[in-house]
């Protein structure tokens, strides 16, 4: 009986959705869609060669602010629930060969993440992707060298400073938009050089740098507070 009622509910819902979609206007009535507008005027209005970044941090900048607020709330919740003792407990890490190999590889990972963050308006990538690569460095340190090493090099206070600093950079740039152009998160046009160079696209690279450090530090905090009781007793 319960299954019958649930099935009836779903059939009714599908019927209502069908009616709803049948009343949409015909596709050929729409002559000029929003994506045509972005492709046509995006480079001219923002100066960013990568249109995805132009949409994320310029046209839909307020949505990106909301997304980074969601990440901030998630990190705060996880730290509040999971971190009970602040002293790091750690294993001794993996073998000597893995440690030396990652010692050679880590600067290149850091360089690649900084490249993805700062060239977000020119090539594929942006603050979010580069920030997650930054967080991967901290995760590699925790797994390979043991989380005590990670605690000594990048303490949780430093990560917290980076996260709040990145969020503050985002909001301050948004406020500067009000000051110079009259709208929140408006593109700061006076920073723009010719399109295709590193210093172009107004405030998009600065927002990328802020979001990159914020996301990287936030995800590193999440992983650290999950791992700090994991490799327990052998230290």
């Amino acid at each position: 009986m319960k299954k019958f009622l649930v099935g009836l509910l779903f059939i009714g819902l599908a019927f209502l959705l069908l009616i709803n979609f049948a009343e949409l206007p015909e596709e050929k009535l729409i002559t000029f869609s929003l994506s045509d507008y972005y492709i046509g005027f995006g480079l001219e209005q923002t100066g960013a060669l990568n249109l995805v970044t132009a949409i994320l941090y310029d046209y839909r900048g307020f949505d990106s602010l909301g997304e980074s607020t969601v990440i901030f709330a998630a990190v705060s919740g996880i730290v509040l629930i999971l971190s009970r003792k602040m002293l790091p407990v750690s294993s001794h890490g993996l073998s000597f060969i893995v440690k030396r190999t990652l010692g050679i590889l880590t600067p290149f990972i850091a360089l690649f993440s900084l490249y993805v963050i700062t060239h977000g308006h020119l090539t594929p990538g942006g603050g979010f992707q580069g920030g997650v690569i930054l967080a991967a460095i901290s995760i590699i340190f925790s797994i390979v060298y043991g989380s005590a090493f990670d605690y000594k090099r990048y303490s949780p206070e430093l990560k917290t400073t980076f996260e709040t600093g990145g969020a503050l950079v985002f909001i301050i740039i948004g406020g500067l938009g009000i000051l110079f152009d009259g709208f929140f998160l408006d593109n700061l046009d006076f920073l723009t050089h010719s399109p295709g160079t590193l210093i172009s696209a107004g405030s998009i690279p600065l927002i990328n740098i802020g979001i990159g450090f914020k996301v990287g530090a936030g995800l590193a905090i999440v992983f650290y507070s999950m791992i700090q009781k994991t490799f327990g007793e052998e230290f």
Partner: protein
Amino acid sequence: MIYLEYLLLLFLIIAAVMAVYFEDEVISIIFLSVVSVILTTLYLLYQAADVALAEAVIGAGLNTAIYMSAISQIREKSK
């Protein structure tokens, strides 16, 4: 090129079924990471390089590490 796309989609379905099929959690996590790698290649084939970068970093790298630490914590408590 169209055959490569179909082959990758087939492997994607096989890897997803394998991730549900095995009872050991570690094997499931490895197969989820395989799903992410195949999805990254598919996104590159569809010329969505931004999404491919995010999928490679988050799906194959971060998710695996976080799932592994969570699974090892659960196993330690149940012993």
